[in-house]
């Protein structure tokens, strides 16, 4: 599979059009890693469709970008000492 065969503009997990190149392989032409700026999902151009295809990514692993800010912070940030 070549880079041109995979989706590189929409995040497979959250469908945000907020994807950038993370890095490329040490040996040129091996692969490209992408990362979604919205949900920090990352994937490699050479991965199976299970990791790269927004249309078939399973619903139970999808995430709605609007819900990200409400995800619990663990551990919670403690108050500053006075």
């Amino acid at each position, binding site marked *: 599979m070549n880079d041109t065969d995979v989706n590189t503009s929409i995040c497979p*997990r959250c469908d945000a059009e907020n994807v950038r190149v*993370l*890095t490329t*392989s*040490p*040996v040129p032409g*091996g*692969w490209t*890693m992408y*990362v979604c700026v919205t*949900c*920090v*999902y*990352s*994937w*490699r151009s*050479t*991965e*199976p469709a*299970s*990791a790269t295809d927004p249309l078939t990514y*399973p619903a139970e*692993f999808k*995430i709605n970008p609007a819900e*990200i800010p409400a*995800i*619990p*912070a*663990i*551990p*919670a*940030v*403690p*108050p*500053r*000492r006075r």
Partner: protein
Amino acid sequence: MAYADLRDFLAALDREGQLLTYSEPVAPEPDIGAAARATANITDRGPALLFGNINGYEPGKGRVAINVVGSWPNHALLLGLDKDTSVKDQFFEFAGRWDAFPGPIVRREDAPWKEVTLTEDIDLFQLLPLFRLNTYDVGCYIDKAVVISRDPDDPDDFGKQNVGIYRIQVKDKDRLGIQPLAAHDLGLHLQHAEERGENLPVAIALGNEPVITTVGGMPLAYDRSEYEMAAAIQGAPYPITTAPVTGLDVPYGSEVVIEGEIIAGEREIEGPFGEFTGHYSGAKRQPVIRIHQVSHRRNPIFEHLYLGMPWTEMDYTLALNTSVPLYRQLKTAFPEVTAVNAMYTQGLLGIISVKQRFGGFAKAVGMRAMTLPHGLAYCKVLIMVDDDVDPFNLAQVMWALSVHYHPLHDTVTVPNLSVLALDPSSDPAGITHKVILDATTPIAPEERGHYSQVVGNPERTADWENIVKGLLK
């Protein structure tokens, strides 16, 4: 018996026929995770796997070692024992060495990971063949490195310096996500740093000899040094080196040392990650590490741990370092406890053998186990057996459960106790009922059942065990 570093241990595994070097080309995904999963699926005596030809990396450069302690023979070799040592014998050997705490440390400054230093344009993906382990992990993780930190309120206390294993998501070339739960020592260090409004310096040491990795996953008291425990377990002084930027003490023999800081007040989406419960963790907003410097050997080996549905390397690695602390703490209160097998999903299920003093005694011992530090997050199902039942022999345990356990008299359910939130049955997450199944033989004043006519071993059975063993060799 002490291994100098990961390479020394891999060489020992190779000599014993417990290392499989794979030189054919492989894809980072799904091959490496699949190979580790497959090895765990087919045998409990499997080898470590070493991949040296990974797509995108020059052959012989990006190397991955996985499943390094992924079997009982490899665990025995970790302890310097014969690879055929039984699990029960490995347990008692481990427990004996645990009592040698604290062992000595030795400081050395000529660490092999000082060969190369990166301070600018850091890109972990160039240095290490990072890869997605399980299909729906959110990205690439580092899951077998030891993370070192100090208590900002007491930075000079060597014992409070923590060495622990935490899952780390590689979010960018030089930026990581980490999961320090509030109950973890690292969580406490971060809490103190954030209360002071300071970032928390951390060092992440990858690719180590197997003892510090084992101790890093051990539930030790807060002020106990993991290095001093590693020295006790390996029976030799543990060598450490000062990390150049943070001044933290890191293992002498590591492949790679990453230094940076957890950024105070920052939380960012992390996960899901396939966990040791056999389920994905879901996503949370968790702390973030900014990397400042990386020190490494030339052509470092990236050591990784496969985890997922048990059994995997995670279970072999944690089996005895979960069981032994429970055993030691339980025996302090009840010397009648003879062994503890808490190696099922890190002790969510455990088996305890005990010599009963009087009727109801085993149930009390089970209650005590639930209230030990590890029990607060685990010990959801406890099976109590007599002292002549080997808790590591499931055939014997199932026998005891099938003929000694009476559902009406021998079930103790304790409602709404704490458990780790990752237990997918907990509801709400972190709360569960717990149960003791008492499969000991009832004794006075609890006189019930028909247990007076046990079929024991014929005379000379012990002699014949040795004869048959000898003939089989």
